[in-house]
């Protein structure tokens, strides 16, 4: 049963990664990252349920909190960039390269 949860988590992680890699929009990429964090939490709670104890919950809780913080900062950056560049398409943000 544990492996089933782990596989689901891995699938969500991979789907998130796919989104991260293919989305053109910065917010879209962020959503992909959200999914990946979500996979982490599934993993943690599955491990906790199948014998890991309370530490897994704690870690999951921290992950959620940290994710929220990340998202907040990330969206702030998105807003700033939108303000300056009038776009949030990651494809168009290539002033710096090489």
């Amino acid at each position, binding site marked *: *049963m*544990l*492996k*089933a*949860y782990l*596989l*689901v988590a*891995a*699938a*969500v*992680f*991979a*789907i*998130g*990664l*796919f*989104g991260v*890699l*293919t*989305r*053109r*929009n910065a*917010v*879209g990429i962020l*959503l*992909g990252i*959200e*999914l990946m964090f*979500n996979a982490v*939490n*599934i993993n943690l*709670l599955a491990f*906790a349920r*199948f*014998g890991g*104890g*309370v530490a*897994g*919950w*704690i870690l*999951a*809780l921290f992950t*959620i*909190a*940290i994710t*929220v*913080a*990340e*998202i*907040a*900062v990330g*969206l*702030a950056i*998105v*807003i*700033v960039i*939108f*303000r300056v560049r*009038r776009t949030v398409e990651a*494809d168009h943000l290539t002033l710096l390269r090489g």
Partner: protein
Amino acid sequence: MSGEAVGFVVIAAVLLAASLQVVISTNLFHSVLWLALALVTTAGLFLLLHAEFLAAAQVLLYAGGVVTIVVFAIMLTERLTGQTIRQMNRGIAWGGVVATGVFASIAGVVLRAPARPAGWGAEPASTATLGRALLSDWVLPFEVLSVLLVTALLGAVYLARTED
């Protein structure tokens, strides 16, 4: 097949479907809604895993908080450009290959992993133990987390404010 198993299959199916929609939907707004669904189904999984408190946190913090901020951000940017943000995927093939590769490598290891030894971690967890642990063993990370949240807030506010 036990009821829990049936529940797991159903919830997992919805979760995966919703996740997929998150990354391929062409409408950013829809993506966010699919994400909310995925998060909520995840909370369902948490319930299956007997983590009620975390399921609640998931719904409140994530599905509530995160989605709200994202929507807010989208609205903000859309308002500024005055058009709906269409979003496309690029390099789907390579993305698919890499993502599948990552999944395959993780899944392979998961499947190869030995079964947990018997009696491994028998202690059941409860919200009460969680609270106690948080304020005893993990008090330092907890305090640090507060600094982290304040800092993130400070940074986000600095970036987002417009007056200077």
